[in-house]
């Protein structure tokens, strides 16, 4: 057991967690942030993607205790004051959402990319979500959504 303190979506959190608990389990079971999903448990599918200190990681392959002192962002943090982010709206408008199970992970991978650059190349967009498996959409609309969000953010509107 270990006490961890961390920031999740801008909120300070403190909890006593078993050493063996994954960050994914902590987010889903303790904080009831069920956006991040377990799709495979071995870091291959990306459904559990969250940002830790601004970087997209597979939360099924990280311990909660490793997140002590870190800033974690999940899809639930994308919405501000009940308003969808530019990225979330872009996913909706581009038709990039079908069953939705991969969507939170996709959005966080995209957010991780947009934190690095607002002018990503096509290759950079694909690379950012290449670790997020989707069985429904065929990816084209997802790539278009991220491109559109980057364009909008570069033009200075919204977040």
């Amino acid at each position, binding site marked *: 057991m270990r006490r961890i303190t961390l920031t999740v979506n801008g909120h300070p959190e403190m909890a006593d967690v078993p050493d063996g608990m994954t960050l994914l389990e902590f987010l889903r079971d303790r904080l009831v942030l069920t956006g991040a999903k377990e799709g495979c448990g071995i870091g291959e599918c990306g459904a559990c993607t969250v940002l*830790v200190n601004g970087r997209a990681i597979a939360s099924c392959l990280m*311990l909660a205790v490793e997140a002590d002192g870190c800033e974690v962002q999940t899809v639930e943090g994308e919405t501000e004051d009940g308003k969808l982010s530019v990225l979330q709206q872009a996913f909706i408008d581009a038709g990039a959402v079908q069953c939705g199970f991969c969507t939170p992970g996709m959005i966080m991978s995209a957010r991780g990319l947009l934190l690095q650059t607002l002018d990503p190349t096509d290759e950079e967009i694909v*690379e950012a979500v290449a670790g997020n498996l989707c069985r429904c959409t065929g990816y084209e609309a997802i790539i278009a959504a991220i491109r559109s969000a980057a364009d909008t953010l570069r033009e200075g509107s919204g977040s």
Partner: protein
Amino acid sequence: MLGSFEYRDPRTIAEACRLLAGEDSACLLAGGTDLFIELRAGWQNPELLIDIKGIDALGELRTEEDGTLSIGAAVPLDAIARSPVASGPWVALREAALSIGTQQLRHRATLAGNLCNGSPAADTAPVLLTLGAYVMAASLETSRQIDLANFFTGVKRTALRNDEMICEVRIPPQPPGLRTAFLKQQRVRGHDLAVVNVAGALDPSSGDLRVAIGSCSPTPILLPSINAAGVSPTALSALAIESALDHVSPIDDVRASAGYRKAVLETLIDRLIARLVSPEGGA
């Protein structure tokens, strides 16, 4: 839960070594991208997990004055790929690092971890072998240097003792103008383990050519050096392929057949040589 282990995060190498010496079933944790999969599957059940990411000295990536590249054991692959040091003679290292897994995995996985996992398919191994890399290993009582050529002892087995940890991977200074390249054959364009991977380093002035091959033997294999001086690219390719086929022993497994591995190995070596000798190729 991934297990009922105790988690410790030492601040110094000495402390980590002490913890390692004190518990037979301890595991070292860097990126966790291989280890956690093993814990989840029940292939390992350690009593103690020692996280090395809190040790500052292990997080450094730097070029030393004499040109040695030093990569701390806790440096993630993503950091290597992005770093300006991963250019020039190290460009193949960036290519190999970028070929591993996904963005999410590369933000956590480390070079040292890739080596310690001991897989014959380790993508960084062929590059490091061609560059004459060595690792610095420490234990409570000892510290030693292990040449990478002696590091891999079998499938998922390395020369590291149970009480030893890698502190850094070091690449010695390379001849100026060295050309390096890395190629990997996968089953899909998305993330995949290597069916075959190859790395090459060519010193244009001495003509020294080194080729290393992964996924075709129980360990990554460094071929004997070839002197490329005055040899045409076609002939050089033929020499390298002949040497490769002599030194590797590919098997049939769920990923590929030995026949396919041999066929693709020829193609990859041919393309590797072409890249190394062409004016735009390599560094």
